[in-house]
């Protein structure tokens, strides 16, 4: 029996790195300190529906084939494609992401990450107005006001509030929750909202109105604020603005309520501007609540390797970036790619129906440890090692801090990185032979 301490949980963007894992006969039998998501990731994996063999769809059914046959088939799809969509690469290591980018570059593909359906608009907001941010420890040690805007960490990031935000104790926040005002802005009273000192319920899709009203109040233009904004009374808007002005250190954590609702990236743009305005009076930062444990890493690696964080099109050789045109859902709903390779993400579960109807029409290569809805749409399937459990590698926490994930148990499966390298080599071989 081995007990591994300080293991990193590779499930959500909180990337908790204090997990103790017990391994017996190459099976994880216990985890300490993980939340239900993390616990199921580690202990649950032995119950989950593992893809056991490479498969190719023949006569409508996926049948087991050799790894070599699957690599050969997948490489042929990539070589014959005019424009492949490479998608996902977020529940995997930075090392795998790097190889995926190289594969996309060499095959003239378009590569996008799960940010497309998550914090992609936040990236656009940063490109408009910048990202005034902090590491999570700055919040833990300093923040006396924490705002959760359109996010629900009680469900999506269960240890966030105890480790980093609402309840965490730090150097200037020795009393933890008692030293902090917790505000939730949402469209429904979530389990997170139930824990807040102040819950501000807004009309769905009206985030931008509230941001604008808050900015007006903070910048001394109270007079332009109507009696009710976004379903919130002017009085409450002014009170909230006052809290922000008088705080010592505010952090706005924001989620899909901000990025997916009407106005999309303009909401994040507004929040960024609001943060800048608050800093005229006190100190404030913002941090996006990232979902996949290494979607932040995809953005980092893609940015240093291609200059762009997502939606990168290599069709014309040099990278081209124009989300709205080159996002994964943009090209699928337009029918603008003729093959797809999907790894470490599940568009089958998380893309709208029109995109899936198109995926069903084109050859799809999947690399994943587990069977999932994407498998149902795939034509070549590679089983992969579970990165962060069966393979080591780098991942980025939601605040941009990178950590090295440990290998906890042995596996017979190849890693995403190894599979990507094998594909690069096979593609080169096919191209060289042509």
């Amino acid at each position, binding site marked *: 029996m081995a007990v591994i301490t300080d293991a990193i949980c590779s499930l959500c963007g909180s990337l908790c790195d204090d997990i103790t894992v017990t391994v017996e006969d190459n099976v994880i039998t216990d985890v300490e300190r993980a939340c239900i998501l993390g616990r199921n990731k580690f202990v649950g994996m032995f119950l989950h529906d593992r893809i056991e063999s490479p498969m190719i769809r023949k006569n409508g059914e996926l049948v087991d084939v050799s790894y070599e046959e699957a690599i050969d088939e997948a490489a042929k799809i990539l070589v014959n494609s005019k424009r492949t969509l490479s998608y996902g690469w977020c529940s995997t290591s930075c090392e795998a992401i790097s190889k995926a980018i190289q594969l996309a570059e060499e095959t003239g593909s378009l590569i996008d990450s799960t940010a497309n359906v998550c914090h992609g608009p936040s990236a656009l907001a940063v490109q408009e107005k910048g990202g005034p941010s902090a590491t999570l420890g700055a919040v833990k040690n300093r923040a006396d006001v924490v705002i959760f805007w359109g996010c629900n960490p009680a469900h999506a990031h269960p240890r966030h509030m105890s480790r980093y935000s609402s309840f965490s104790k730090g150097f200037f926040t020795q009393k933890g929750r008692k030293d902090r005002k917790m505000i939730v802005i949402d469209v*429904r009273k979530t389990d997170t909202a139930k824990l807040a000192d102040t819950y501000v319920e807004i009309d769905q899709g009206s985030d931008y109105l509230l941001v604008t009203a808050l900015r007006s109040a903070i910048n001394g233009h109270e007079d332009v604020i109507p009696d009710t904004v976004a379903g919130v009374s002017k009085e409450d808007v002014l009170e909230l603005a006052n809290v922000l002005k008088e705080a010592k250190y505010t952090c706005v954590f924001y989620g899909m309520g901000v990025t997916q609702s009407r106005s999309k990236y303009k909401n994040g743009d507004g929040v960024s501007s609001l943060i800048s305005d608050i800093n005229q009076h006190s100190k404030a930062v913002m941090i996006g609540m990232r979902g996949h444990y290494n979607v932040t890493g995809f953005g980092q690696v893609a940015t240093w390797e291609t200059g762009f964080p997502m939606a990168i099109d290599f069709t014309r050789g040099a990278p081209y970036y124009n989300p709205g045109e080159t996002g994964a859902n943009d090209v699928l709903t337009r029918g603008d790619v003729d093959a797809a390779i999907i790894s470490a993400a599940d568009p089958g579960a998380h893309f709208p129906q029109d995109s899936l109807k198109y995926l069903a029409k084109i050859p799809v290569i999947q690399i994943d440890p587990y069977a999932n809805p994407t498998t149902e749409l795939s034509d070549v399937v590679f089983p992969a090692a579970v990165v962060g459990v069966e393979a080591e590698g780098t991942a980025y926490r939601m605040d941009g801090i990178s950590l090295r994930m440990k290998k906890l148990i042995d596996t017979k499966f190849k890693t995403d990185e190894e599979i990507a390298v094998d594909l690069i080599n096979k593609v080169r071989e096919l191209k060289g032979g042509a």
Partner: protein
Amino acid sequence: MKLEANLISGRTAYQGAYLEAKTHKEYFDACSYCELNSSDLAKLGVSEGDNLSVTTEFGDVSVFAKANDGNPDGLAFIPMGPWANAVLSPDTHGCGMPGFKGVPAQIEKTGEAPLEMKVLMRRYYE
């Protein structure tokens, strides 16, 4: 009776807990429902566990009814996943992001039970 609702989707702890077990019944249970508040459910004449049909401009799907009194009137929530995505908006409005929140939906009682994940996915080949 049909309810004109505003549909949003999002994460839940159980959706997340079974994220890597999507062929399992636990994932089906965690994602194939629609939350409305009790008064909206009462308007539709359904109890928790009954079947609801959710229809939007983009499709329709059957899901279980679930009560959540944190929802304001007319706000419907389906956990992110294949059932929600059967009816959410594919339009990215020129910025890449589909419409996962704020989709007008009609909700009514139905006799149709939610489709199991693989069956639901087979529909995309049709």
